């Protein structure tokens, strides 16, 4: 019998919709896989066995009664990043402060998944409040990279990407503020897409940096990501920053790309994202990918985006500034952790002691950075300047997209580093997002698709593709075409079976 956990989402959906297998069978196969390997991976913070099976039974029941599937991925299991609210199901954001919080409402993404018949297996591990590039900042222990369990799975959405690479789920949802979907995708050999800002509702996405946060699809193939993208995208009146425009035709584009022809597509290589600081194996993998894009018929040119080099410092002013305000609500008054409420402390002290106890070091660091950057007398020099850089980066993108259809770069400068290697060096950690941050600052769409393994360490490398805002479909066409040319990758992942769970 086929191992259901090795199928892509589109393959699973086809079998379920033809009633060759049931959604309950597919769901149980993945729940069993989680039970078997997650002790070694730690991709999940919460597994919702009951909820998942109930959702699967609903899909099976509808199909048995002859109804059409409610979406192309109805009945397919999915892993949801623990930063999106799920009614009555724990949502911790990887933080102690929300350890026992049960949200009274579903995020719009969660609601759309449910309405599409997608089976939510559980909630995935992440850096606390999505702050980090390794998932080591989770209050519930790091997630391990299924390619090498001594290494990080990327972050902040390491749990979502690792669950895909470990065959615990065929689909996952991530959120990307500075690269938290794309960098984990790159280091786990999976696909991750940050849609255009405003393309997917942020309602119910616990905010890290409101002007940068964007939820998006994670999968093991470009087509699967597109199918999931269409389910979660679209205008939401509950999110004022949601774009009121049709969802770009991402599935059509992915299917077109699968034909393997990029004739007429102009690809720009970002000149600034190479050289010093880039691991040679990553660089070689990237160059090979560019050569394959040429073989597919694309015209490749080098493009300079001079202000991209200022993206990282600008990001580390804007994101902490917004987070210092967004995270102020965790004050022990209405929900979440409360310490020192023993009758001897004032409300102010309870707030302060709870925040001290509930937040980890990286969250505190960023709250302090942001508080400082917004302070009177420093605002113009820090937050104000960073916003100007943001405008310049947007202009670089606009100028580039007048010449080319998409831009490409490595997703991240190195392959997965070892757990513990960068925890004491925040600046080294921040460099993991060097190439992904510009798309967040400008709000345009970007994807990471695996470009094979680095020849020096045998670890996955990601190719980043960037497209203009609202042209998410271009990512899928180029990504799918490249994926076909590259050939299979995940069958080379070491077997996790037999690991001590």
């Amino acid at each position, binding site marked *: 019998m086929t191992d259901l956990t090795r199928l892509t989402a589109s393959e699973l959906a086809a079998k379920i919709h033809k009633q060759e297998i049931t959604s309950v069978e597919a769901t149980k196969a993945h729940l069993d896989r989680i039970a078997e390997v997650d002790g070694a991976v730690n991709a999940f913070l919460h597994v919702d066995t009951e909820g998942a099976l109930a959702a699967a039974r609903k899909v099976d029941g509808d199909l048995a009664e002859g109804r059409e599937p409610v979406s192309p991925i109805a009945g397919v299991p999915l892993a949801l990043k623990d930063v*999106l609210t799920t009614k009555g199901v724990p949502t911790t954001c990887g933080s102690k402060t*929300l350890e026992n919080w049960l949200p009274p409402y579903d995020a719009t993404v969660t609601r759309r998944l449910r309405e599409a018949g997608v089976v939510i297996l559980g909630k995935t591990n992440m850096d606390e409040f999505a702050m980090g590039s390794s998932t080591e900042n989770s209050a519930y222990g790091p997630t391990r990279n299924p390619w090498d369990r001594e290494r990080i799975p990327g972050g902040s959405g390491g749990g979502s990407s690792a669950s895909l690479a470990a065959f615990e789920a065929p689909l996952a949802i991530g959120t990307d503020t500075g690269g938290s979907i794309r960098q984990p995708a790159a280091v786990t050999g999976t696909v991750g897409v940050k849609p255009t800002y405003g393309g997917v509702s942020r309602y119910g996405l616990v905010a890290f940096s409101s002007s940068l946060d964007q939820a998006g699809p994670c999968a093991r193939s470009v087509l699967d990501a597109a199918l999931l993208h269409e389910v979660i995208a679209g205008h939401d009146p509950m999110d*004022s920053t949601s774009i009121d425009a049709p969802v770009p035709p991402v599935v059509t584009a992915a299917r077109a790309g699968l034909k393997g022809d990029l004739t007429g597509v102009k690809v720009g290589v970002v000149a600034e994202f190479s050289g010093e600081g880039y691991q040679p194996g990553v660089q070689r993998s990237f160059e090979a990918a560019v050569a394959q894009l040429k073989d597919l018929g694309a015209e490749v040119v080098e493009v300079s985006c001079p202000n991209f080099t200022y993206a990282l410092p600008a990001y580390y002013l804007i994101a902490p500034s917004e987070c210092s*305000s967004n995270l*102020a609500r965790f004050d022990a008054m209405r929900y979440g952790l409360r310490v020192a409420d023993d009758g001897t402390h004032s409300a*102010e002290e309870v707030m302060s002691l709870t925040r001290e106890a509930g937040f980890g070091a990286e969250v505190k660091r960023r709250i302090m950075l942001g508080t400082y950057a917004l302070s*009177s007398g420093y605002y113009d020099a820090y937050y104000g300047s960073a916003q100007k850089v943001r405008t310049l980066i947007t202009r670089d993108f606009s100028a580039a997209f007048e010449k080319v259809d998409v831009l490409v770069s490595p997703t991240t400068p190195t392959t997965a580093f070892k757990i513990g290697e960068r925890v004491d060096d925040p600046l080294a950690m921040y460099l993991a997002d060097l190439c992904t941050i510009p798309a967040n600052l400008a709000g345009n769409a970007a994807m990471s698709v695996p470009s094979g393994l680095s020849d020096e360490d045998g670890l996955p490398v990601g190719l980043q593709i960037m497209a203009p805002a609202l042209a998410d479909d271009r990512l899928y066409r180029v990504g799918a075409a490249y994926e076909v040319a590259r050939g299979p990758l995940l069958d080379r992942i070491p077997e996790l079976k037999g690991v001590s769970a």
Partner: protein
Amino acid sequence: MTAVVDLMDYAEVVERYDPVLGLEVHVELSTKTKMFCGCPNLFGGEPNTHVCPTCLGLPGALPVVNGRAVESAIRIGLALNCEIAEWCRFARKNYFYPDMPKNFQTSQYDEPIAFNGHLDVVLDDGEVVRVDIERAHMEEDTGKSLHVGGATGRIHGAEHSLLDYNRAGVPLIEIVTKPIVGMGERAPEVARAYVAALRDLLRAMDVSDVRMDQGSLRCDANVSLMPKGTSEFGTRTETKNVNSLRSVERAVRYEMTRQAAVLASGGTVTQETRHFQEADGSTSAGRTKETAEDYRYFPEPDLVPIAPSREWVEELRATIPELPWERRKRIQAEWNLTDEELRDLVNTGAADLVAATVDAGAEPGEARSWWVQYLTQQANTRDVELADLAITPVHVARVIELVKSGELTNKLAREVVQGVLAGEGEPDEVVANRGLKVVSDDSALLTAVDEALAAQPDVAEKIRGGKVQAAGAIVGAVMKATKGQADAKRVRELILERVGA
């Protein structure tokens, strides 16, 4: 323990110092729903029943601007002769307080929706003072705290605190004056007159309940003094939440006498928030902050900018009703009032009420007499503002109509008004429920007249003998017998008919 506070005699204060005022008025809009969510905007209610994820600041929830509130803000701005911003944004005002769910208030900072206006204020003696308006901006209200235990009713020293978030997120407009200078001894009166004028304006526009007793209109008074002949503003204090017109005047006057005593003794005024004590008209220091509060304002990333089109602004301008002062000019001309008569009307707060009563169909003289005499007495007895009596101009006009048509006598009309004031319903309901119709049936009256004449034959004889004024005693007896529901004039006619005088 109360510290003894030195106060300077008021006459000496104004001889030695020039007061500078700045008034900040918060107005709760009477929109159906809150500023950023769909919860009902209602005063009171069981605690924490008008709440949702957004106004509770739950993780992940997002705001959506109430279009009606923006409309009201623009209309208020136009009525205050302000410029309306072509483009403006919300900003976050960051500070921690338990009754503020997000620990930031969504407000406007350097980009208010309305700015640079003025309001002409009429003082008791008819002098008109122009108060310049700095800005009017939109923001959300906080929840309410009830601090239990402790002497002050404030958070410090309380045993525990209760929080009600029903008010959290209620739309507010904050209207800020430019410094009001050169008012001398009339400064306290100007402050009161300004708030009264603003209240009348907002009431006429039907954008707020403007109930100072319920907090839907709240005034913070900034006061400073500068020695006569100088032009540099002194250090100011801000007296918070002064909850009646009279209190505004008292608070300003008190601060002037207190600050003058401090300055005259060589001291310096501390920049601080002060609380007004209704009982003795004094102000007391709030907690002195060691450093100035830094609110770390930055543009609200969860909301998109507001860019009211000029066409929309002009449409809204056309909806602004006749404003109170315009109406006063008109009624003065139409009713041939002297300046003095108009001023009396205005000072009792009756002018707009009379005008509205006339608009509802009453004759101006009757309308004036009801409001200035009987209803003013009723307001004084109840110690409320005339406008806060539970009777509307439409009610009064109806009562006048009933008297005119002979269905009520003046005495019965006052009883009807008492019924309306007691909450028994509209005038017609009170008439029906209390059975207050004039007895106009002559046969019923004749029976009463005959009985009265029979009971007092000596009086009947006197009348017959030509002493017509003696009829009064019989009239009185008939009125008593009919419980006042007879028309006295008709009774007198019937008596004279009966005795054949």
